[in-house]
């Protein structure tokens, strides 16, 4: 049997791993998406790269971290980031660029500065797309975080791998079920947040 403290510790480690990665990914990708608005070349590169990396199996990404960076928490964060970053950049860029040009014209007409247009027009209009991207990234991060236990990141995956080594069904489930519950909680909480942050006039 696995002690309850072990499960709680592993869950905490798991949450820290997921949210650290998610935070870093958001901080990096939102400015990058804004930059892509100004450079067609960068936008093209980012989208092409994003679509391509999406196809690479997570296990391959996680495994390649070992010879390149090593094992532990940091390689795990980088591996998860490689997968989580791109959906956020992609969605943010799509959200920011798919805006009614008339809205921008109006904004310029009433004399808003470039910064004000970004802050008050483009960003709120892109919220639904950005949040869809972040939600997707969070779920992806949660699922890869289970796998990165194999390269020593800790977290719930560690209990699962313990169970796999001894082929102990109970231990396996004790690791897997909290990970599944966490995933569903992430889905629910992000959907709720998305609803709150969407401007009232954009709600259907």
């Amino acid at each position, binding site marked *: 049997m696995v002690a309850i403290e072990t499960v709680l510790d592993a869950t905490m480690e798991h949450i820290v791993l997921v949210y650290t990665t998610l935070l870093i990914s958001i901080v990096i990708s939102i400015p990058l998406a804004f930059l892509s608005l100004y450079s067609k070349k960068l936008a093209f590169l980012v989208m092409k790269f994003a679509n391509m990396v999406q196809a690479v199996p997570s296990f391959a*990404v996680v495994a390649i971290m070992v010879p390149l960076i090593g094992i532990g928490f940091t390689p795990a964060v980088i591996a998860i980031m490689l997968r989580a970053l791109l959906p956020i950049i992609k969605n943010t860029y799509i959200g920011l660029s798919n805006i009614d040009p008339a809205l921008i014209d109006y904004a310029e007409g009433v004399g808003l500065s470039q910064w004000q247009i970004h802050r008050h027009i483009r960003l709120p209009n892109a919220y639904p797309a950005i949040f869809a991207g972040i939600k997707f990234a969070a779920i992806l991060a949660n699922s890869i975080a289970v796998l990165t236990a194999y390269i020593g990141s800790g977290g719930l995956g560690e209990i699962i791998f313990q169970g796999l080594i001894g082929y102990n069904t109970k231990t396996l489930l004790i690791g897997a079920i909290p990970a599944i519950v966490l995933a569903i909680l992430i889905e629910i909480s992000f959907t709720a947040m998305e609803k709150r942050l969407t401007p009232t006039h954009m709600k259907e």
Partner: protein
Amino acid sequence: MTLIQVIAEVWDKNLMTMRTIEHLQMFSIALLLSIIIGVGVGVYIYSRPKIANTVLNLLNIVETIPDLALIVVLLPVLRLGAGPAIAASVLYSILPIARNTYTGLKGVDEEYTYVAHALGLSPRETLFKVRIPMSLPLVVGGIRIALVFCMGVITLGGLVAGGGLGTVLQNGIQLYQKDAILIAGIWTGLLAVILDAFAGIIEKKLHQRYGTW
């Protein structure tokens, strides 16, 4: 030793030709099952619109489950081997295929169904001769998403003795063989990207042939 020699040696030592064939075998079985079940579910919920949302929401929850956790939960039932990985791939792939089939069937322009009706086609004929061909591009789009899911989950199969390229990666990490990890990792990634690009070409062709949106 040149780079090619190193790659050839690692390739032989890890039986990578055999592993690749194994990998593609599991992948094809998983994708085929996904397409059959996914399209089936899509057509079924199209004919029963009342339960469509419930089914799609349920499948949405399955989608959030971490892949390794899903495989592990299936282990006690399906035992070690390729079974859990294939089953998990199929479970993940039903949603994109079913959702796209459903959206595709529903999204067919009413003009076409009117014309079909006017020509005297029965509802069944309309489904098979008008709606299904018209929704093909979307269905293939769903299959392309499923292809990426299957590839990822099948690679994880190596961790539960499923064979395939995941096994080479697992051995590489366990024994800390850097070049084996690198070569197998890059090869696995490349294989997935090539298959995805291939599916992309088919999708584009179908769009040109049937696409109306």
